[in-house]
């Protein structure tokens, strides 16, 4: 069985007092004493209720602010990532361009080397024939 809360105890006590008033067993003096006790209890409960509301609002506001901060950081990170990605793409494009130029240069060099080899081969062939003639 769960424990009675303070609110439940105050309500139960109020019922008892009300019963005693109905039964006319309370003197006027006792009535004022009981009334004062109940008023004190209600005042304490109201104070506690206000504290709960105040603290709950404070926790809620801090949560909202934390969420806002997190979403701002996440947005900033996404933006940074996008900008980093753009920079990377630009670098890759430059690098690809330079690779293309390099390939063109190497192809031309290879072609000229092949043609030089061909000429040298011809020259060697001619020299060989002339040597054999002699």
């Amino acid at each position: 069985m769960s424990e009675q809360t303070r609110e439940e105890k105050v309500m139960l006590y109020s019922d008892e007092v009300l019963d005693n008033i109905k039964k006319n067993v309370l003197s006027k003096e006792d009535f004022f004493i009981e009334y004062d006790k109940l008023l004190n209890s209600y005042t304490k409960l109201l104070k506690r209720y206000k504290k709960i509301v105040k603290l709950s609002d404070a926790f809620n506001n801090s949560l909202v602010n934390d969420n806002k901060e997190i979403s701002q950081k996440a947005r900033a990170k996404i933006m940074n990532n996008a900008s980093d990605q753009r920079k990377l793409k630009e670098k890759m494009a430059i690098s690809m361009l330079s690779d293309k130029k390099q390939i063109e240069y190497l192809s031309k060099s290879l072609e000229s080397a092949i043609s030089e080899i061909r000429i040298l081969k011809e020259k060697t062939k001619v020299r060989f024939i002339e040597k054999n003639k002699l």
Partner: protein
Amino acid sequence: MENLIISKTNYTPDINFDTDTGILNISGKSYPENTFEFYTPVTSWIAEYVKSTNNEKLIFNFELTYLNSSSLKSYFDILDILEESHNEGSSIEINWIYESDDDIIEETGEDFKEDFESLEFNLIAK
């Protein structure tokens, strides 16, 4: 009495009540889906435990970082039980532990301390 151990989740605190040492720790966040369902066994256990002890000193360490409104209400209920037990002669020490830059948890501790004047209630900044 057996120890009460409840592991923390994303929404509920870690609860470790060691009956051998008389040291009871609650730490973490508290915003359960059903707060009363979560705390009813805890308050019942505490109520039964404080009744069963022979006036040995009990130390309650609360190290909470977030409480929703219904959790706040549950802690008022727990402290009501402890205050009642203290008024009946038990020796109870409450340590409300918080990060020094956490104003809200500090304020929560101050509000509890104000409400439970008769308890030995220590506010401890980390």
